[in-house]
């Protein structure tokens, strides 16, 4: 990463003529998408910005990314980053299945899935859980605002019990914790963050992009129109006041040198697919311990705290493409000669059916 890029971190370059570029000679502009049509101040746009920064700074080739989503304000966002990547805004709740199919067709492309809490915790819950069970290689971001934004503010399944509507009506239902669900379903990278905390979020996205397997980011992302009022536990203010980071991370790609300027006792290095995660502990939590990961989430929930950071990581599990033992060439790019058995093969099939 160049010095200039570092200065412009997360911002459009001031001088487009001499725009900073990354290792692929791309400017940050090259990572942008169409103009957002979301509401001003929507948390989702902040997450979009983090994705752009992460991909730009990692010098990811946009042509190697595919963007997938369901339906919702959140699910619109793939249109707002990386116009040079193919994107597919599918049906409500099916981001996970869409990405799984895409991942099978071409396992050399990295899917970024963007979903909402309605999309993943309600209508898509089953498909989402099974995507994780299969350990699809994906960076799957849930832009969690506790409501159905696009259909105008109904509570979603991640709305906390007791949180209130704009008119003050409390939500009687228990919240579905997508972090816990991810862990028990078999996700191999589970993090939680907050759209308003780019310093924590951007490196988490970078790490997720370098994880081979199902990386789930449950990102609290306030809906400024329908769920940002007094009494809501998913308002900007409430999240700010009640979040509890267990750690922050740096992701250092393999082409960079690791500088360890942290107190070693508080730092863990986790080797990834093409880089290293350096994790700075803020609380005593070992994210490689599955049982502890479940426990800290549950404890935090009982204390009405939003735990953020890298909650769980297990980089060792084979991903879907490995389990399916896929040939190196993407299935999508195999030629007739590699796909259609020969006339002789058919003859021997016919022969075998003559008895």
């Amino acid at each position, binding site marked *: 990463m160049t010095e200039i890029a570092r200065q412009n971190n997360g911002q459009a370059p001031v001088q487009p003529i001499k725009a900073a570029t990354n290792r692929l000679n791309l400017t940050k502009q090259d990572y942008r998408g*169409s103009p957002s049509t979301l509401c001003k101040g929507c948390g989702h746009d902040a997450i979009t910005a983090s994705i752009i920064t992460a991909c730009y700074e990692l010098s990811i080739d*946009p*042509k*190697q990314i*595919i963007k*997938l989503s369901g339906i919702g304000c959140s699910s619109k966002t*793939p*249109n707002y980053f990386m*116009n*040079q*990547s*193919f*994107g*597919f*805004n*599918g*049906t409500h*709740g*099916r981001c996970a*299945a*869409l*990405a*799984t*199919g*895409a*991942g*099978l*067709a*071409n396992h*050399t*492309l990295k899917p970024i899935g963007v979903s909402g809490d309605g999309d993943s915790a309600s209508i898509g819950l*089953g*498909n989402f*859980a*099974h995507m994780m069970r*299969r350990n699809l290689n994906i960076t799957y971001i849930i832009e969690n605002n506790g409501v159905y934004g696009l259909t105008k503010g109904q509570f979603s399944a991640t709305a906390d019990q007791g949180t209130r509507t704009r008119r003050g009506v409390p939500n009687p239902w228990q919240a579905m914790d997508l972090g816990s669900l991810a862990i028990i379903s078999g996700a191999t990278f589970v993090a939680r963050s907050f759209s308003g905390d780019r310093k924590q979020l951007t490196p988490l996205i970078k790490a997720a992009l370098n994880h081979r397997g199902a990386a789930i980011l449950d990102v609290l992302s306030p809906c400024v129109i329908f769920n940002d009022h007094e009494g809501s536990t998913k308002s900007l203010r409430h999240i700010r006041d009640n979040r509890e980071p267990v750690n922050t991370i740096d992701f250092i790609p393999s082409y960079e040198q690791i500088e360890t300027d942290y107190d070693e006792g508080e730092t863990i290095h986790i080797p990834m697919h093409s880089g290293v995660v350096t994790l700075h502990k803020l609380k005593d939590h070992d994210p490689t311990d599955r049982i502890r990961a479940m426990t800290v989430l549950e404890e935090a929930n009982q204390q009405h705290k939003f735990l953020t950071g890298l909650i769980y990581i297990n980089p060792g599990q084979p991903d879907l493409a490995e389990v*399916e*033992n*896929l*040939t*190196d060439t*993407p*299935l*999508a*790019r*195999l030629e*007739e000669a*590699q*796909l*259609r*058995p020969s*006339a002789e*093969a*058919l003859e021997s*099939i*016919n022969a075998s*059916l*003559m*008895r």
Partner: protein
Amino acid sequence: MGASIVNDVNISIATENGSGSASSNTVLFKSLYKMGLTCSSKNLFPSNIQGLPTWYLIRVSKDGYLCRKGEIDVMVAFNRTTLAADVDQVRPGGIVLYDDSSPLPPGLERDSLSFVGVPATRLVHDNIKVPQLRVKQRNMVYVGAVAQMFGISLDIVAEVLKDTFGDKPKVIEPNMICIELGFKHMAESGFEQDVARLEAIPGGNAGKIMTEGNNACALGAIFGGATVVTWYPITPSSSVVEYMIAQIGKYRTDDQGKARYAIVQTEDELASITMAIGAGWNGARAMTSTAGPGLSLMQEGIGLAYFAEVPCVIIDVGRAGPSTGLPTRTQQSDISAMHQGSHGDTKHIVLIPHDNPSAFRFSCEAFDYADRYQTPVFVMMDLDLGMNLSITEPFEMPTAPMDRGKVLYKEDLDALTEPFQRYLDKDGDGIPYRTLPGEDHPDAAYFTRGSGHSTDANYTEDHTVYRDLLDRLRRKYETARNDMPPPIVENGAATDIGMISFGSSYEPTREARDCLTARGLPMNHLLLRALPLSPDVGKFVAQHEIVYVVEQNRDGQMTQILRDDFPRYADRLRPVLIYHGLPPAPWEIIKIIDEMRAAS
């Protein structure tokens, strides 16, 4: 062996499922195939795993008819719980072969039938040492008995056993013992039937293959280049993908032992269709296979594939609906759910095989249609075609190369003079050009969505752009109309009466038509093979004053499409509807036509 009728007989074998009768029946059927006879089988099995009544119908036809006859000459009545009803099925003069280890319940015998006993339970008990084997072996006894009765040589049966169980003498031996016991018992009983005798026809089935339609589909899909296969188990479609799983490794393993395919058992049909769409979009030849309830669950995905123009293949193996219905009975009642699948205005391409070679061919070509039209393509199978062993011509190697349709690769994009527009109808045929994700070109990427979009794939709510898009999709469908497998017309006589059939209704309609013609009521016959309806279908309708449409559903779903496409002739189209779940018998078709004619 005094019977005067040669090579024409209908046998029904009544047993319990899970009792080993499946093997016995297959051995018997394969023996007939080996003898060179024209024969067909219909397996009527229950929707459970063990202990319910099941029937296996074998027809040997000297005249080459393959459908269910509907008249039973011989009942192998090996299931006590259905005995009484089974006896009622047999035509006067027919035979009931039963297990007389225990006496026949009173009141069953009747003069018009020959009751023949073979003490299968006792024979097996006395001769098979291992008690666990006895239940299953019992059914081999009737194989021997039937063989003796009709003159099937034990050598042939032995050959079949060897073909079937290969190098497992431990399996073959007890089976053969029981078959011989049955054979011997019948020989010694001195019973001589006069229903029919079977005479081997050397070379009679030369070059013919014997398999199930679902297997034909599976092989067709492999030859069609299916690479991503998603499925959720459901009767009667499961064996499509299960057969693929068993076969595909042989043809699609690379030098390093890695797979040139992915087959994923999904968590539900929502996932199956959506994964297939994700894969089709990302460049794979993607397919899924399902039946009624799964098809209903796929409706939303089908609409997405249609509107976002993503190729994928859906094999629907029809069963008796609606709802769970009779999962192990056959129907052609998913036509509307396929052809107009999903909310909003959709019209889909449906390929309709009527036998195993066409199942192979259409399942293979479905991928070309899907890629060519960038749309979901259905292969309409049903339980009758899909799960019954039948003897047909062999599969034919596709002559045309795979058609991946209008895909622009790097070089093509370089050669473009105007900017690439994903949804532009450049050629006026309604079919736009697409690129595949991962294409290494700066202009390749576009954004796909199920919502309104412009020719350059941007979101829009503009109402004229939207209408143009819907119009183009319809134009694409109209383009396909002239590109579908044409109907096969069997025009026999100068008559103004026509019949239309499709899929598994073809065979009984063919026979019914021959009967009617023989009776002095000649009819022409059109075999419909695809939707959209080819203009040739319209011509056929126009040429006849009355057109009977034989369908295996209650509401005349195909007739509805015909009437809507050819409103001028709507009134000539007379649905002949058989929907009880059994494969139609010709007499049922004739009866309905006779009633219609009498009424008018």
